Structures are given as structure tokens and as C-alpha cells.
């Protein structure tokens, strides 16, 4: 399966990348995507997740072609 992963704001800076393009079988959830893409990285507090631009919980399913995003709490407005 093919998953695009995106990082934003302070998380992007601390990870040092804005995106990953994963080509791997066997990722079932958003949590799996995080652990696979960042094997040695402790997850910062309060990180939010989205699949295809909608907010999801960490146990949400991922499918081939999904865009998964991780980012800190939003501060717009």
C-alpha cells in the first residue's frame, strides 16, 4: 500500500521533514503509520492526526492511497 504522510509546524521542525511517502504492506491504523515512519521518535504530547484532511483518532484505519497528517494543536484565528 501507498501512504503519504505529512507533518506541520513545530512537529515538522522537530522531525526535520515535511512529508514521507510510504510504500509498505501491513499498516492498519494511523498509529501504525506514525510508528513505522518515526521508529525512534517519542510522540510529542497532544499531536493531532488527520486522514484525507479529516480529524481522526489514532486507532482509525488507513487504506491504500490515504494522506495521513500529524500536527500540533492548531493556533489560527
Amino acid at each position: 500500500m501507498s501512504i503519504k504522510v505529512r507533518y506541520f509546524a513545530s512537529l515538522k521542525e522537530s522531525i526535520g521533514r515535511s512529508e514521507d511517502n510510504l510504500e509498505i504492506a501491513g499498516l492498519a491504523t494511523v498509529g501504525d503509520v506514525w510508528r513505522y515512519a518515526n521508529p525512534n521518535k517519542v510522540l510529542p504530547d497532544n499531536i493531532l492526526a488527520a486522514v484525507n484532511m479529516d480529524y481522526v483518532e489514532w486507532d482509525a484505519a488507513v487504506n491504500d492511497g490515504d494522506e495521513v497528517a500529524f500536527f500540533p494543536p492548531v493556533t489560527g484565528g
Partner: protein
Amino acid sequence: MDIKICPEPFDPWQEIQAHQSSVADMAGKFGATSIFIGTMRDFNEGDNVQGMTLEHYPGMTEKQLEKIVAEAMRQWPVIDALVMHRVGDILPNEPIVLVAVWTSHRGDAFDASRYIMEALKSRAPFWKKELLKSQSERWLVKNTDGYL
């Protein structure tokens, strides 16, 4: 309904007026307009702020803002709404966000505009990084609750 992500400074009054006159059949139909404008201040948490960079998640921002306005339109009889938000480099005194809601009656306009602002603050994927006068940078950590 109109949602705009703006990489350049905008004039809120011009935008509201242009929007209002572009919707021809609104004339005489709305009795109430509630507008909120958030503007960049030159200080925050005790520090002088020289500028700000607003990062966003293109695509998700629009999707979330459309959902928020649709929620407001389901809860209140909204005739029309305009939401604008700056991204990129922002200077003090520049508008950051504009929410305008047109309704028949004033209570609905106040409620719907405030709902949109609060939902935008908690769900629209924007992130602010301040550039302090001391030249250090810092990410804002969390939005405060605007109902408190």
C-alpha cells in the same frame, strides 16, 4: 458562502462590501450582519512581537472551514457567510481573520459568527510562529477558549 485563504494582506471593509454587493439578491433581505476581525498585535505574553508566520495545511483548511460554516448554517438561519484567513508573513496591525455572517435577526448573526470563530480557532489547521523583537522565534502553543 465564501471561504478565502489569503497569502497577501487584505482590507476587511473592502472585502465585506465587495461580497455584500456581489450577492445581488441579498439587498433588502438581511437585517443583521455580525462581523469579527482578528488583528495581529505587537505584543503577546509580555513580549514585543515584530512579525508572525502563519503556516497552514492547504486543502484541509478549506475543508474544515467549509464544514464549520455548514454546521453554523444548520444551527441558525444564515443568509450568507464570508470567512477569510491570512497565511504567510504577517505584520502587526494586519488583519488575520475575518468572519462575517448575514441573517434576518440579530441573535442568529451573533450566535453564528461566534460559533464559526470558536470552531475555526479549535479546528482549522493554522499554526502561528511569532518573531520577537529579540529576534527569537516561538510557536504559539494553544488557543484560548473564547467563551470564557
